[in-house]
């Protein structure tokens, strides 16, 4: 671990050896996980609980002629069979998506993608439920499917959403950002213009735990409790209230331990709603857990952006403008999970980390006969696609100019004195020192030495004794700017819910604390880092601070963990709550010490009388005093609690410089990632161990997307990535040993300067790997994933489309 600037040091350590604030601390949550005592949704086992399963469409597009459930109903262990017709009577056949569209819970008229929900069975056990699915007879009338997004708007394309009144085509929206006229003018006069088409193919977050729920509707009390795999328990509660018309005070959403989310567990899936219906219908608790194929085929996919990028520059390599046309494949329903005013997410941050005045993007989104989604897989609301575009285009420009891609980047990176910087599409980057991060990555990589080695290998390969099997070495760079921690609430909402987070901190009389969060961890270690945040502000040992989350009955409202929101938004809420406690503690200490608040000075964890440090009160002593009969000044309430709703003034802007080195076997197309260097700047690191873990995971995602992961379709709309035998995740064999570095540029507007890091590496790493592969094979543009077959075809100069199994 190298550091160009030391992170905030430990103030001191607690009796248990933990830092009183920031620093490496082992995770509190691990004690249960390493014993197999994590409590995930599928581990919930209630008395009398029933099990369920969903019958899914085998066609991508077909009219439902009839559904015969009689044989399934006759199965001795079956308790209920539910179809779209049943749901229609409850007004539940359709539900709103997070993007103002509707999606069917169970199909009534047509199926619109392979894997869509058609019927639902509740039975005594899961084997019986699945047996009964086999007994349901569905007669379909197959329809032509729209599989290739590029043909979705053809005049003769079948209309997918004929359920929407007045629909005559498959267009969802046209949207643009930037000044087109100004941008076009720069292009018209530019010395150099490079244009490329590229696909960021459809991929899937595929957390190791699939999605599921256990619903229990208590008939007597009318209370619905639902244990569910959700990254946003409070938003789910409100949506259940709106969809099902249930009184919100009687809905408890519990998000217990979650086996990874990555965006897959933001939305509400039909299965969750069906488990509720199942419980209402049978009067028993009902569990629904999807299998892996269902997860890959029907839950939120990610990306699927078809991009045409153009970059303009001077011959000396000064970038002047960037423009892009995007065709966005949203699947059969517009179900992306992003702030309402941003139909293409934050894609228009695509100008990236460079200094140029002109930019324009146009996004056209279309329906196709595929599963819905688009915003998922740690994408920071489509910044992944944006970073991919700009980092590929800058690399293509370097190729055109015959300039080293590091030199070209260095020449164009924003300079530290330009911050806060307003981008051509209106983002206000809060802070950064970009050249420092790139230099640090190049230093760790030994960049010049790598280029020398590459030149030698290329010379040898061109020489008379060339070995045809000698690996081709490639070096790829990427520099990313992230924007994370949505709101502010005035600009950002999901389904009308402003993106602000609540938080409550209570200091008990004995000086032990409970912190209640609206966000929920899916592995990020909230139980540890949030205790450290509070410790950092008021000096209580982190082991004395219990973090409570994932249960809407016991935590304040907030929008949830996605878009790297937890630390920037809820982390700020926790810090502000702790600060309020500290301020109130001062008043109480003054009362107890019979002095004025102005006479008091703070040292970590204690207020004391200026000039007489022996006269003081620790937070624990003050907590007891706050609950005692001590007389408090007029207007000061007893107890030591604080409740905060934090509305972020802006996003935070983490950034980083990544370098990837690959070796490609020219005879088989196999890509081996030799090294990966990642320098991240996420502001001060609350727990460096956890930050590094987050980065490691994201880098593996980048290797996965660049080399292995894709959900492709055949011309009938059959999903070709519906299992882990077809949808390949990186294993320990594909991942190198990651080499990390850091710089620290605090966010000026966050109470403790931190920026969020959960998605940085997933956003930043794919272009570094792709740039390295293309550098190795000396091809300017081909599309990921670079499986051996794709790489080999690219080497032959015959690129394949990765998203379709047709040429």
């Amino acid at each position, binding site marked *: 671990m190298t550091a160009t600037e030391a992170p905030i040091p430990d103030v001191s350590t607690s009796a248990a050896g933990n830092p009183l604030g920031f620093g490496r601390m082992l995770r509190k949550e691990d004690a249960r*996980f*390493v014993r197999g005592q994590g*409590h995930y949704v599928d581990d919930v086992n209630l008395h009398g609980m029933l099990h369920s399963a969903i019958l899914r469409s085998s066609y991508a597009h077909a009219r439902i002629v009839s559904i015969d459930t009689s044989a399934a109903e006759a199965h001795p262990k079956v308790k209920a069979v539910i179809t779209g017709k049943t749901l229609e009577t409850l007004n539940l056949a359709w539900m709103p998506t997070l993007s103002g569209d509707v999606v069917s819970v169970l199909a009534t008229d047509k199926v619109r993608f392979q894997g869509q929900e058609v019927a639902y069975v509740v039975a005594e056990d899961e084997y019986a439920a699945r047996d009964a699915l086999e007994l349901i007879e569905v007669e379909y009338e197959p329809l032509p499917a729209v599989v290739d997004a590029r043909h979705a708007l053809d005049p003769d394309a079948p209309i997918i959403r004929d359920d929407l009144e007045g629909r005559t085509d498959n267009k969802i929206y046209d949207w643009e950002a930037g000044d087109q006229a100004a941008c076009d003018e720069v292009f018209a006069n530019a010395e150099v213009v490079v244009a490329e088409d590229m696909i960021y193919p459809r991929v899937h977050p595929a957390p190791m735990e699939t999605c599921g729920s256990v619903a229990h509707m208590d008939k007597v009390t009318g209370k619905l409790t639902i244990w569910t795999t959700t990254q946003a328990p409070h938003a789910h509660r409100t949506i259940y209230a709106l969809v099902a018309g249930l009184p919100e005070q009687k809905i408890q959403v519990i998000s217990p331990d979650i086996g990874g989310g990555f965006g897959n567990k933001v939305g509400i899936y039909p299965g969750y709603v069906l488990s509720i219906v199942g419980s209402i219908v049978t009067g028993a608790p009902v569990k629904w857990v999807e299998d892996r194929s269902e997860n890959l085929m029907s839950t939120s996919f990610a990306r699927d952006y078809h991009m045409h990028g153009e970059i303009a520059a001077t011959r000396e390599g000064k970038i002047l403008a960037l423009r892009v046309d995007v065709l966005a494949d949203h699947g059969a329903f517009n179900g992306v999970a992003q702030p309402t005013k941003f139909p293409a997410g934050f894609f228009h941050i695509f100008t990236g980390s460079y200094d140029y005045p002109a930019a324009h993007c146009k996004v056209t989104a279309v329906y196709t006969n595929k599963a819905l989604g688009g915003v998922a897989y740690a994408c920071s609301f489509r910044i992944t696609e944006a970073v991919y575009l700009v980092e590929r285009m800058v690399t293509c420009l370097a190729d055109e100019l015959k300039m080293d891609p590091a030199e070209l980047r260095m020449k164009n990176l924003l300079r530290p004195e330009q911050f806060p910087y307003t981008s051509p599409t209106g983002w206000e980057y809060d802070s950064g020192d970009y050249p420092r991060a790139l230099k640090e990555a190049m230093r760790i990589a030994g960049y010049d030495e790598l280029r020398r080695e590459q030149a030698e290998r290329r010379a040898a390969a061109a020489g008379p004794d060339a070995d045809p099997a000698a690996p081709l070495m490639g070096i790829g760079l990427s520099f990313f700017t992230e924007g994370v921690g949505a709101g502010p609430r005035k600009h950002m909402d999901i389904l009308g819910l402003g993106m602000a987070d609540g938080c409550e901190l209570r200091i008990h009389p004995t000086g032990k604390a409970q912190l209640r969060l609206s966000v929920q961890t899916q592995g990020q270690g909230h139980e540890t880092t949030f205790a450290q945040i509070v410790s950092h502000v008021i000096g209580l040992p982190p082991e004395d601070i219990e973090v409570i989350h994932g249960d809407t009955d016991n935590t304040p409202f907030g929008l949830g963990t996605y878009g790297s929101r937890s630390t920037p938004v809820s982390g700020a809420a926790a810090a502000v709550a702790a600060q309020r406690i500290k301020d109130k503690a001062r008043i109480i200490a003054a009362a107890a010490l019979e002095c004025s608040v102005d006479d008091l000075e703070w040292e970590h964890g204690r207020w004391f009388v200026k000039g007489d440090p022996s006269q003081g009160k620790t937070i624990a002593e003050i907590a007891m005093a706050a609950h005692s009969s001590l007389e408090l000044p007029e207007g000061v309430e007893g107890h030591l609690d604080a409740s905060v709703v934090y509305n972020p003034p802006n996003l935070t802007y983490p950034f980083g410089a990544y370098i990837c080195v690959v070796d490609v076997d020219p005879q088989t197309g196999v890509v081996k990632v030799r090294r990966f260097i990642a320098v991240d700047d996420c502001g001060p690191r609350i727990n460096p161990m956890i930050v590094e873990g987050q980065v490691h995971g994201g880098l593996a995602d980048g290797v996965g997307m660049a080399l292995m992961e894709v959900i492709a379709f055949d011309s009938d709309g059959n999903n070709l990535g519906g299992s882990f035998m077809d949808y390949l995740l990186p294993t*320990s064999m594909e991942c190198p040993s990651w080499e990390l570095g850091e710089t620290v540029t605090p966010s000026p507007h966050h109470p403790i300067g931190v920026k969020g890091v959960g998605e940085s590496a997933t956003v930043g790493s794919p272009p570094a790997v792709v740039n390295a592969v293309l550098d190795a094979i000396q091809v300017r543009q081909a599309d990921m994933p670079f499986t051996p077959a794709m790489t080999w075809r690219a080497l032959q100069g015959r690129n394949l489309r990765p998203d379709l199994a047709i040429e």
Partner: protein
Amino acid sequence: MHVNVTVNGAETGADIEARLLLVHYLRNELGLTGTHWGCDTSNCGACTVWLDGVPVKSCTTLAGMADGHEVRTVEGLEGTDLDPVQQGFVEEHGLQCGFCTPGMMMTARALLDRDPDPDEATIREAISGNLCRCTGYENIIRAVRWAATHEAAARAADQEGAGV
């Protein structure tokens, strides 16, 4: 059919459907939910347990195949203290969401039992049948090395003690 399976040293038995998978026997019949399930195709390794000392994927093992045999699960790792593999995962941050962790640790424990001092490449190969979506594997490898190093130190201390 009826099966008798020794699980973590304890006798267990139940009347089951012949098609019942071992993972469901452990989770549903015995309530040992530390063994997870993450795919339908033997790819992810979240369900890894030992059958007669050898790691197997319990999602593709029938409970009937374990009849009369010994199974060890994550719940059987801890002795008086945490197993060094468990401690290593804590010390080196070898887990995030924890979903892959039980299977990963069962694989790692088996590796260390047959090779107490594996190098990085050996560890990578050994755990290549266990997917993790959170950690990028780096800290899992460090966790296994932590366990190897600490076990070696403990063995050395034991021998020294025995020699005195």
